[in-house]
């Protein structure tokens, strides 16, 4: 498999090398090098932003640090770039780690804007230090030892090696637990965290790696340009260059930056060369328009557009066939009477409280959950169900109270640690990783207890079988029905082998028959010993599912009892329908 994926790349690189060796025009040689420099930069950016979805407008900071490090190292210490470029990678990596640690508390566009500030700030620092213009000292002797070649083709060959290395690195990341974690973060950071992924740690690793690669590229770029100015390595346009080639070509794939750079860099150059002298500035207008048109036609980039087109042509029949979901057999009808009472308490909640300003969303909530039972938490809109849930699984921090999991206090622990402790969850709003297959979606949840990729795959396959989705394992999540998505989310939670499952409105949006199918699956899971806590807005289907109900109203426990008792309880009817109706009930 490895060989099959690497071989086309090596052949592509070899073809590029052969072409570059045939080019004798030094300008075209420079172009061939620059295409690879910007493709590499796009790949490095993609390694972080493409996979995690956290858009960085500030990758120039790593690029520039690598560039200046290499220039200053040669000017002041007469070191060779052969040594400086690898060390520049360390500099870029360190900067990545530092910036990540400082900036990851921010999310989405706040993160993007904060990243924008770093290169702009450091640009001024280098101005202030008096490094407005640096030139690499020319070596008449030992030119090769200082990476100064008279033949431009050598730079192209070096750039090919560099690009190929980064592509292979990207693919290795993409296919490993690292890449799956990043993709999970991109698709849904909360879901990833709930699936047991330590999102902060993975994001830090990603920005460190991306910063390191970018630093080395910046260092190499200086050897091509031979002049460094703060604008040319820290400028807005440098960061934008990485974004442009990647977004144009395709985000989240190694092919994107390669396609983007191969088209955009020569186009920009040709326009400037052919039109620049006659109509100064016209190249910018045409270049900009071309990008606008392509982005309008292919918002995710050329690669995805082409791939989706090809899929539609070839993959249409395969989709239609694998629609059926097989429900595990041997399901007995829902027992409406006997709670499985073996007496052992798995989850104990004591006096849990949470306020948002003056609003007491959850106040003094206490209840116990017995191992292997199904507990339903219900209540009208705004009763505090989801807040209670978020307190239980670590997404929100409680103000007061205790949460005992198997007698151990897990009060206020982070989601991925709770996941490791055996608590799985699903979300009210479904959070599938849309571009991934069902199997890939589920495997993300399996890494928490798997030593290697193969073991994780096995756990995932097992979980998929338990929810009856085996037939759909290779389909893309975006093609699934609501019910299938619910089951897939359930499988993802199951893949981490939880002892306790927290389900947030798993039955919402399902028709009566679909809901019945999901209920069947859930009962089977309970039979296998998994404790389930499910919150629902409506009572109807829940009556046939749960062993006990906790009814919440205004953030507090209204009643706790069996389904039969709950349906007849006036207080519950009142809470749901108002006092007027309780009299009729």
């Amino acid at each position: 498999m490895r060989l099959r994926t690497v071989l086309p790349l090596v052949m592509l690189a070899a073809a590029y090398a052969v072409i570059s060796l045939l080019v004798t025009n030094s300008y075209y040689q420079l172009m061939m090098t620059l295409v690879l420099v910007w493709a590499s930069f796009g790949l490095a950016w993609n390694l972080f932003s493409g996979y995690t979805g956290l858009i960085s407008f500030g990758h120039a900071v790593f690029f520039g640090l690598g560039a200046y490090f290499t220039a200053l190292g040669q000017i002041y210490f007469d070191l060779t770039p052969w040594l400086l470029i690898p060390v520049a990678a360390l500099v870029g990596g360190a900067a990545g780690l530092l910036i990540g640690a400082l900036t990851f508390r921010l999310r989405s566009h706040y993160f993007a804007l904060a990243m924008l500030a770093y290169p702009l700030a450091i640009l001024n620092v280098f101005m202030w230090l008096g490094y407005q213009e640096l030139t690499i000292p020319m070596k008449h002797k030992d030119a090769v030892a200082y990476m100064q070649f008279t033949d431009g083709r050598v730079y192209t060959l070096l750039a090919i090696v560099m690009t190929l290395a980064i592509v292979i690195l990207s693919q290795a990341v993409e296919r490993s637990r690292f890449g799956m974690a990043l993709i999970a973060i991109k698709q849904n950071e909360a879901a990833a965290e709930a699936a047991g992924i330590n999102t902060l740690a993975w994001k830090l690793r990603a920005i460190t790696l991306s910063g390191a690669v970018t630093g080395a590229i910046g260092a190499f770029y200086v050897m091509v340009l031979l002049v460094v100015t703060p604008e040319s390595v820290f400028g807005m346009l440098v960061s934008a260059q990485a974004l442009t080639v990647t977004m144009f070509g395709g985000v989240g794939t190694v092919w994107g930056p390669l396609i983007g750079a191969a088209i955009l860099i020569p186009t920009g150059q040709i326009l400037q060369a052919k039109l620049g002298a006659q109509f100064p500035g016209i190249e910018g207008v045409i270049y900009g328009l071309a990008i606008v048109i392509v982005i309008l036609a292919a918002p995710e980039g050329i690669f995805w557009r082409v791939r989706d087109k090809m899929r539609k042509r070839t993959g249409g029949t395969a989709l239609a066939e694998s629609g059926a979901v097989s429900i595990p057999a041997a399901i007995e009808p829902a027992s409406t009477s006997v709670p499985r009472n073996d007496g052992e308490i798995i989850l104990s909640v004591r006096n849990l409280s949470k306020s948002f300003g003056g609003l007491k969303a959850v106040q003094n909530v206490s209840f116990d959950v017995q191992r292997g039972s199904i507990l339903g938490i219900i209540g009208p809109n705004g009763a505090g169900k989801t807040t209670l849930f978020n307190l239980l699984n670590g997404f929100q921090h409680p103000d007061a109270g205790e949460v005992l999991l198997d007698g151990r206090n897990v009060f206020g622990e982070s989601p991925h640690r709770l996941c490791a402790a055996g608590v799985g969850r699903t979300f009210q709003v479904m959070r599938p990783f849309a571009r991934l297959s069902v199997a890939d979606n589920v495997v993300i949840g399996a890494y928490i207890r798997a030593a290697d990729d193969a073991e994780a795959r096995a756990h995932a396959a097992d979980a998929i079988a338990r929810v009856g989705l085996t037939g759909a394992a290779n389909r893309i999540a975006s093609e699934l029905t609501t019910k299938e998505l619910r089951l897939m989310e359930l499988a993802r939670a199951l893949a981490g082998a939880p002892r306790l499952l927290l389900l947030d409105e798993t039955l919402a949006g399902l028709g009566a028959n679909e809901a019945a199918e999901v209920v069947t699956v859930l009962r089977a899971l309970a039979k296998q010993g998994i404790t389930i806590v499910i919150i629902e807005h409506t009572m109807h289907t829940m009556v046939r599912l749960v062993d006990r109900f906790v009814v919440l109203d205004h953030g507090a426990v209204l009643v706790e009892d069996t389904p039969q008792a709950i349906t007849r309880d006036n207080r519950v009817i009142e809470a749901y329908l108002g006092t007027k109706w309780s009299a009729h009930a």
Partner: protein
Amino acid sequence: MKLGRREFLASAGATALTASLAGRSAWAQAKEVEVGLLMPLSGLYARFGASARQGAEMAVDKINKEGGIKALGGAKMKLVVLDCGDTAEKAKSAAQRMVAEYPNMVAVSGSYLSTFTLATSEVTERAHLPMLTLSYSDLITDRGFKYIFQTSATAGSQATQALPTVVKIAKSAGGNPKKVAIITDNTAASVASVKPMREHLLKDVGLELVVDETFTPPLADATPLVQKVRSARPDLLFFLPTVISDAKLVLEKMNEFGMGQGRVPTMAFGIAMFEPDMLKSMSPDLLQGMIGSIGSWGSKGHEAIAAELKAKYNEPWVDQNVISTYADYIVIKEALEKAGKADREAVATALHTMDGGPSKYYPGGEIKFDDKGRRVNAGLTIIQWQSGVPVTIYPDNLAVAKPIWSKK
């Protein structure tokens, strides 16, 4: 005319023989000699590149009208104009394209901004293509390059020349500056110019710094700055704005406070304050009396060029980029005459060994380059806004007007 087969073969053979005997340069001699102009023609610095282009076109026209390169049998000069864009990276690419597509080019002039010249000369140096530049940075000729020729005085040399020169001008006009003020913004170029002044240059010529104000563009209100200047009553103000709107605010306020129009002699830095475009946003009254120090400027003896510039391009005066670039092609022509062949190595050698006597177009010094490629004894020009035109007031042999200096 019809050629028979035999005659055709004979002539073809003869041609081949001549070509193989005389080599490529023989071909070139019979045709044209390519010279380049690599300047910013797009982006932020396009205005300056356009001026340089006018100077280049006029010089090449004149050379060709007067019979081309005589040592090459009257070969005409052919000007190749290339845009180096507005960044160091674009400049490098453009230079690479130039050396790749014009292998017969013998010399080039460029690239206005020091940053661009540093980038483009990395390429021309490796291609052994002689380059003449008006850029100031000392670094350009500190790299040990063999094919770069700096025609202006370097920044370091200008910094030490400018202050004593201004004091000399003041004295010649009846002034005697003792106390000086600085108003500068905090952009890199301004800060770099002010730093050596604060450190020692002012002291060296016996000037006392009484007001030293730095602001961040854009300026909202110039009143506090100008009030400080008024209360200190300096004999000379150094003014270093980068943004034209800031310059306008300060000059208007000075005028309002009765210090404008040269009543407090003011010296600005940089060519931007002396471009025709200034008159679009400011009245000539505001600019009246403002002094500038610059690498070169249209001066006495350049009247024909000024007239041609006015007629051909409707430009009101000859600025640094026009005159300095004009001069570059005259120098290149002389080098070609001396080299006797259209070959870049020969032109480079000719430039290094040339001794063209006193300079006619660049201020001061000679048409002669030292080991580093710097023009020997290159001087500078002091100019002053007088009645809506920046005129040369120094050096005396080039001055077209007497300096105006307020005697208080």
